[in-house]
Each structure stands twice: as structure tokens, then as C-alpha cells.
């Protein structure tokens, strides 16, 4: 499996304990009414994909964007993980998770994808992954994948209960709370042992 042959990229909401803690009692209030039962997923379509080191354009009306640093499983076939890759899932900041976040998350270029595939294997335990987010060299966030609500294998099993992830499909493990904000001109670097560094610079979109 090559990172040049990715198919559908799925993101996962509320799979970090920190996200659930941040919402707290809100989860039982309208419009949600209850905490989620099944994995909460969304799609980052191909127009959002940016390579490592690519510049990512911010529309003029977007002053700051939220960095969604994560590690994703890349599938070899149904139920079989080929490996892991860094991702920077950018969003226009928004508070509600009631409706699908298409207009906040599906802008052109809004998904940085690392260029290193860490092959899956018995010695690789996703719960041991740690990543760090730096903006212009300054450490802004550290993420510990031991804090997942559904560990990687459980997440994959629960998603496969209702849809099949095939070769090249991608499933992000989740994005922790405390997501840093960045603005045009900032260089965002996401690094993790074995996964290399994913670096993207934000630029202001040229006036049209």
C-alpha cells in the first residue's frame, strides 16, 4: 500500500477522553441528548489533501484555524491495517457537532498527510503513539494515544460493524482536546517517533 493510492479518508470525533471531558454534561443536553454510541465519523474528501511541506491556503474570511493533529490507520484490505501515517486535519473553528462539519472541514487543502507510512506489525502498538505539535518551532500540544476511548483495534472493529474499510481507505484515530490555533504565515509541524514529521505552512489565499 502506497500513500499515493489513498481512497476515502475518515476522521473520528470524540475518541479522546479529553474531548468527552471537555463536553461534559453538554452531551446530555440538546441538541445531542446523549453521548454517542457508535463511532462518530466524517470524511475528508480528496480536494482537502495536502502533501508534506505543501503550503495550505486560508480563505480571507478565516483568521485562525484549528489544528487537528492525529495518526491514521491506512488499510491494506478489510480488517487489515497496512500502516500508520501522520495527519493534520484542519478545521475552521466551530462549536457544534450536531451537523456534519462539511463547510468547516472540507476546504481545499485542509488535510495535511504525512509522507511516512509506518508499517503495521505485532511490535507496533498504537496505544504507545505520542505526537507533538509545534507552531513556528514552539511546542503547542502533546498527544498521548493511550488516552483513546476506543483503542485502534476496537475502533476499527466498531466501524467495520456498519461499513467496510477497503484497501487504501484511511481511518484517523481521533483528535484530542486542546487543539492549537494557527494563522496565515505559521508553520505547523507534527512529529511522532517512527512517523517522521508532517510540516505545512499556512498562507493567505490570494484575492480572487
Amino acid at each position, binding site marked *: 500500500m502506497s500513500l499515493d493510492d489513498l481512497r476515502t479518508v475518515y476522521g473520528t470525533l470524540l475518541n479522546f477522553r479529553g474531548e468527552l471531558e471537555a463536553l461534559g454534561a453538554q452531551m446530555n443536553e440538546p441538541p445531542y441528548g446523549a453521548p454517542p454510541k457508535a463511532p462518530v465519523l466524517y470524511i475528508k474528501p480528496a480536494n482537502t489533501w495536502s502533501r508534506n511541506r505543501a503550503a495550505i491556503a486560508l480563505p480571507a474570511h478565516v483568521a485562525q484555524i484549528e489544528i487537528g493533529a492525529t495518526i491514521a490507520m491506512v488499510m491494506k484490505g478489510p480488517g487489515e491495517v497496512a500502516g500508520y501515517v501522520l495527519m493534520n486535519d484542519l478545521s475552521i473553528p466551530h462549536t457544534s457537532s450536531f451537523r456534519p462539519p462539511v463547510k468547516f472541514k472540507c476546504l*481545499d487543502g485542509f488535510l495535511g498527510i504525512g509522507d511516512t507510512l509506518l508499517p503495521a506489525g505485532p511490535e507496533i502498538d498504537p496505544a504507545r503513539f505520542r505526537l507533538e505539535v509545534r507552531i513556528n518551532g514552539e511546542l503547542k500540544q502533546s498527544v498521548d494515544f493511550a488516552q483513546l476511548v476506543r483503542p485502534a483495534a476496537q475502533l476499527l472493529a466498531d466501524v467495520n460493524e456498519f*461499513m467496510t474499510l477497503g484497501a487504501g481507505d484511511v481511518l484517523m484515530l481521533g483528535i484530542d482536546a486542546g487543539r492549537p490555533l494557527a494563522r496565515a504565515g505559521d508553520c505547523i509541524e507534527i512529529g511522532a517517533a517512527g512517523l517522521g514529521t508532517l510540516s505545512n505552512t499556512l498562507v493567505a489565499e490570494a484575492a480572487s
Partner: protein
Amino acid sequence: MKHARIVHEGVAQWATERDGQLLFADGNLAAFDAVTWLPPLEPTTQPRTILALGLNYADHAKELAFKAPEEPLVFLKGENSLNGHRQFTRRPDGVKFMHYECELTVVIGREAKKVGRADAYDFVRGYTVANDYAVRDYLENWYRPNLRVKNRDGATPLGPWLVDATDVPNPMALALSTTVNGKLTQSGNTKDMIFDVPFLIEYFSAFMTLRPGDLILTGTPDGVVDCRPGDVVVTEIEGIGALMNTIA
């Protein structure tokens, strides 16, 4: 012209309609029920973007006890969800309410970025019919409608035809209907869409580039009913086609 993507003699290929049969490039003809139908789409090197509208008909919004949206309610689907004409869609065990949704579907023909509504139709390759099944038992209020409801394997039949845009002079005035086992259960008209096709192309292309082969499923009017295993569901749009699916 009406184009179909067919597996015939083991090979996926295009065919057109000729006098109630399928005509292949080599001149051979085949009966509709003698072949395997695929979604009428050219394969893409990157995954196609599949946008789907919720609550895009005033009457359906009313039926579901929501007020009409002020901006499009849109969700995305993966290609795993697509299925061909005359195929089967599985109803999960133990659920109480699985319904069809007959939807006019736009196939994008040219890269569309910041397109104004006056030019929007220039970016349409053609039209087809989608049946965007939903399993309402699984609705949750997180990114609603959530993927467990709307992104199940093979639960979005598409087809049978890709109809050239030039053959559909006004896509915003097409009768739309669904039958279950031959009984009419849904009827409406695309003129009743809240956000019409030019609006949707302008709206989406303002923030995301649409590419050839991308799809916009434009929502369904009221009249959705529960479907049980064995039910034959035909979703039909005037001039576009009648898409048949059987619940398994």
C-alpha cells in the same frame, strides 16, 4: 444519450440504450436483465467526493418535524456505499425503520471552483438517480445524519443511466416517484427543492473544488416508508431512469 456501466462477459464497459436493450461499443446487444449493472460512473484515480443533501424538499423537512434549513444540510458518503441497478441492499437484522430516498443526482463534468449560479450548468456532465437508503434506528445527534445511518456498504444504489446534461433541458422540473412492490409510495417533483442544482454548485464550489466524477445527491421529498427483506424498490425520475433495488 443514456449511458450505462455494465459488466458484460467479465469486463466493465460502457453501453448505451438502444430500443430497450444495451448496445456495446463492439455492436453487440444485451438484455437489461442479462448483465450486471454498475453505478454509471467512470472510475477516478482519487476517490470521488459524494455530497448528499438532507431536508432539501420543504415537504420532507415538514414530515421529519424539522423546520426548513437556512443553508444546505450536507453530508458526505464513501464509495463503499454505492451500488448498481438491479442489485441488493441489506437490511440490518433487528432494525425497525429502513427507508429509501429517491434523489436526482448530479454528476460533475469539469473542475468547478468558485462557480456562480449563472454558469453552474456548464459544469454538469449529466444526471442519474440515487436511492439513498437510511436506517433510522441508528440516528444519533452527532454529525447527524451519521455514517452508520447513511454510509452502509451498498446502501446507495445509483443508476441505471448517466443521462447527458444536454438531454435534460430543465432538471428542476422532473417528476420523481418511488414504488415498493409496484405500489406508489412516494411522489414529488424536483421543482420543490429548497436549494436547486445551480445554487448547490455555487454553494459547494465556493469553498471546495468539485472535480469530474464528483456527485451531488440532491435530497428527497416526503413519502418514505419502511422496507423489508424481499421488497422491490424502484426509484424513478422522469427522463432520467428507473432504478431498481431489492432489499436483502
